[in-house]
């Protein structure tokens, strides 16, 4: 439970810091810290129900600070968390290039889904090419920032007394036996 509250606090702090950071950086260059926290937590989380509730809470919080429809980020972050959790159980995505690639793809899919939802509910036109190019750049920035956020989430887990943060960081053992 302690870890849940800590992750919620980290996610909310990420949203607020991101809002301040956006005043300095143009939109594509500003990493989506709120989404990064959700994805990185999803890769390490074990209890699905509590994690979904956490992602939903952070998503709805993002909706209050964004120009989106209320519930848009809520829905998408729940889906992002679930996909991270499922992918994290099948593959080792906790660090390095796999993590960068996964976050890049997840951010891009997140943008497409956000555009589709806006189009469905508000009957708006499709995003222009310039926005998509910015979206790809944004996904790349998110991917590059992911290892740092993942490290922060891991440290938070360790600090909260979650052994998972340490013991399962390298789950693949060597098959070579000592002679």
């Amino acid at each position, binding site marked *: 439970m302690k870890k849940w509250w800590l992750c919620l606090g980290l996610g*909310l*702090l990420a*949203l*607020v*810091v*991101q*809002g*301040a*950071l*956006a*005043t*300095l950086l*143009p*939109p*594509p260059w*500003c990493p*989506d810290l*709120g989404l990064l926290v959700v994805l990185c937590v999803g890769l390490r989380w074990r209890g*699905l*129900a509590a994690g*979904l*509730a956490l992602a*939903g809470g952070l*998503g*709805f*919080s*993002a*909706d*209050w*600070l*964004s*120009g*989106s*429809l*209320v*519930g*848009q*980020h*809520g*829905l998408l972050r*729940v889906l992002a968390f*679930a996909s991270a959790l499922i992918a994290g159980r099948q593959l080792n995505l906790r660090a390095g290039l796999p993590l960068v690639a996964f976050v890049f793809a997840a951010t891009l899919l997140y*943008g497409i889904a*956000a*555009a589709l*939802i*806006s189009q469905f*509910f*508000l*009957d*708006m*036109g499709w*995003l*222009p090419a*310039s*926005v998509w190019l*910015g*979206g790809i750049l*944004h996904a790349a920035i998110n991917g590059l920032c992911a290892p740092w956020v993942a490290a922060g989430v891991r440290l938070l887990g360790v600090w909260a007394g979650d052994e998972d943060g340490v013991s399962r960081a390298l789950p693949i053992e060597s098959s070579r036996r000592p002679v």
Partner: protein
Amino acid sequence: MPGFLNRLAAPIVFLVLVLIATVTMVRDRGDIAGEGHRDLPWWRGVLLEVAIPIQRAAAAPFDALGDAWGRYIDLVGIQQENVELRSRIVLLEQENLQFREALVAGEHLERIAAMRDDFETPMLPAEVVGLDVSPWFRSVLVDRGNQHGVRAGHPVVTEQGVVGLITRTSPGAAKVMLVLDRQSTIDAVVQRSRARGLLRGLGAGELEFEFVVRESDVEVGDLIMTSGLGGLYPKGLRLGQIVALEEPGGSLVQVARVRPMVDFGRLEQVFVMLRRGPSLDLLYGPNTPAPHEKPELLPGPTSPVDSESPSEPSAAPRPIETARVDRP
């Protein structure tokens, strides 16, 4: 039995969250269409309230860095800019004199009196404390809310032109949907030819002006102003300047690219116009500031008024324009 319930917990939580998100999106869309009230109660606006001081503190070092860099850049080009500005002042002064003469000669004093109401729109200064947390939307957070008299539907401007529209308020904060947002559509006119059309946000740095080809006279460099129709924005506020015209290609509707007047990259201080159009008052109820705090107001001479437009009765009921979706 507990194991069975535990297995069901995750799907149930997932379905509940998806259901809540869908319902809130549908409800929010209803609010946009004018069926609801968008002033948040304090318990729902608490995140906005908490965000303001933290974002201000977090932004302080970045702002200082940006200011220092901006001052250096300003110094580099200041001499050339000074020369350009001086020559522009001379031109503008001449133009101003000509306009005044034309007004007096054309007995337009009655029109000026009719527009007095526009000039006297109370302005509430506000500071931009945060930007949208998602790169897919364009909104900002300002440090004034419904306890200062700010309500959903109030236009937000700077001395350069229109910034956007208040979409949500909490007691001490408000969210402004920028004109750049894809959900923003404004009824607009070309200042020179009075050609009317719709100005849409694209989610990027430019806007799109849609107008009917046959009846319109639109050229690159034309200034786009609010038409005042629809009830969201007062008439005569500067929106942007046409930078390119796209070929109609046989279509009845032509599209022009518009550069916004406001420099959204340096948006710091804005003014909330504490007045909504008559049709918005029908939607949101009477526009009365909270009685316990008198808003810190500025007189409204910053509101640029299109002096060439013919006078129209402002109190007549107009077709209701939605904040985010509007079709010609």
